[in-house]
């Protein structure tokens, strides 16, 4: 199953993400979820970024809305537009979860 998971919050609800099988998983950082891709809490990357075999995406407009630039995004994360999100949803992921 190719599963797309939308993370819209900056709080750490990693526990559910940790349990989901990594293979084929896509994680979409949207809204306040984008902080996971740019903030280094206590000097460390977000725990959410540590999963193997996962594709990460962050919505450019949500990063820029919050005062960050896309160049600040963690290198593991792909910067995407709404157009990209629609295409990824339709072509790359069969099922979607909004956590």
């Amino acid at each position, binding site marked *: 199953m190719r599963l797309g998971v939308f993370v819209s919050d900056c709080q750490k609800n990693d526990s559910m993400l940790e349990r989901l099988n990594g293979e084929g998983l896509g994680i979409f950082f949207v809204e306040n979820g984008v902080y996971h891709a740019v903030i280094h809490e206590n000097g460390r990357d977000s725990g959410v970024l540590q999963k193997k075999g996962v594709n990460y995406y962050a919505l450019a407009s949500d990063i820029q*809305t919050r005062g960050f630039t896309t160049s600040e995004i963690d290198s593991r994360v792909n910067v995407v537009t709404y157009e990209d999100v629609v295409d990824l949803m339709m072509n790359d992921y069969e099922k979607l979860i909004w956590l």
Partner: protein
Amino acid sequence: MAKSILFVISRPPYKSENPKLAITHAMACFVADMHIDEEVEPVVAFVGDGVLNCIKNQRSQEFYGIISTEQHIKNQLASDMRMLVCKEDLYRLDIKPERLINARDMGADIDLNVVGFNEVQKEMERCDQMMWF
């Protein structure tokens, strides 16, 4: 004799309207003496993930057609409202001082005031009332 209300903003921007409501309620203090026989002095403190509100160059207008939280904060600074930002949380989230909003382009005389949490706590003791957003 004036009363003071401390508005504590503990949530990040753009999740709910909470931080903006804190700022608009703080602004409303300037006209509160319409209703009562004394003035009400607002103080705002950003703590916890609330310090994320203070990052400059927010572009919500461009992407979502809504005035940014940054613009609200600038308006407050230009109105000489005292606004504290918790140093420990800026450090925790690795937000450097040069990223913080200022309103010098609007002629503001004051900046966001970065202080230790102990200073926020002193303000909590000093104020007459507290509203935690």
